[in-house]
């Protein structure tokens, strides 16, 4: 009998979730490699030719990269050498949609 399968859910007090949220899958924004050590690339796929804004934030929330474009697709490079480890927020605003991803700097 898997005792813990019956007991521990009782102890799961008001947590709501027993695991993390899965990320949404989209093809508009891709970061690679992730995690990254020295540099990372950010690819934006803008097949509708809509104006978009791409933003990258450092670990203290400061803007590291900001571009306003309307290209079909573009790739941006972020140099991470000398930057602290942690999460770098990448945000793509295109039309009414906003896509956010986190780049892990090792």
């Amino acid at each position, binding site marked *: 009998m898997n005792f813990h399968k019956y007991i521990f859910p009782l102890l799961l007090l008001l947590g709501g979730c027993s695991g993390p949220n899965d990320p949404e899958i989209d093809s508009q924004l891709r970061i690679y490699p992730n995690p990254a050590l020295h540099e990372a690339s950010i690819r934006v796929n803008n097949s509708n030719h809509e104006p978009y804004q791409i933003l990258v934030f450092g670990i203290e929330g400061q803007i590291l990269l900001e571009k306003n474009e309307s290209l079909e697709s573009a790739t941006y490079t972020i140099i991470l050498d000398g930057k602290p*480890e942690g999460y770098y927020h990448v945000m793509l605003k295109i039309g009414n949609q906003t896509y956010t991803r986190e780049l*892990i700097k090792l």
Partner: protein
Amino acid sequence: MKIKLSLLFLLSVLFFNSFAQSKTAEYFFTISTNVYLPGGSSGKSSYPILGYNDDYKPSFQIGGFGLGAGVFIPLSDKLLLKAQGNFSRYAYWDQSHFLTDVNAVPLGTVYSHSYDYTFGTTGTLHYSFAEKFSMGTGLGFQVLLTSFSIIPKFDMSFSNKDYKTVMPMLPFELTYKSEKFTFSTRYELALLNRLKGDLADYKTEKYSLLVFEAGFRIK
């Protein structure tokens, strides 16, 4: 930052000292558990107070807890003032992340869990609606001492430095109080976006806390 912390500490001391001069004040040592409730758009999710799941590391999941002190002072037959302060840990699942190689080929997802260590304080005005039971609201603050995320897959942890240090909170509390013991359930709503820096202009992250607090009378 240091000035804010010093001011908050000074206010807390003055607040507690004002109670100390009252003969009717009752002091309690408190222990608590808590659940961090992320706002809908944050991508985070709640971590269990105590749980077990074979799919994640660590399999045994120990969530939030805290230690502190509280004081009650009656103002009238039906009204009483409660002040409390606590050092607490809050735990939550962070947003999962896509992994990719250098050619942008997806390698799956990785998850992390995060911990905030805080000093929290609330002052609440309670109304006794039944014998030994009261409910109240007021104002509180959470002072973030440190926050970090752990990625079990890489056995790494990172400091989270994009959160505000001081967060005003709106508490709602339901309390049972006897001569030697109290039990409170407190909901605290963060009043501001917790993100700071330029990021706060583009993204809003709200949260709230649910705290279960037991108090044992010390004076």
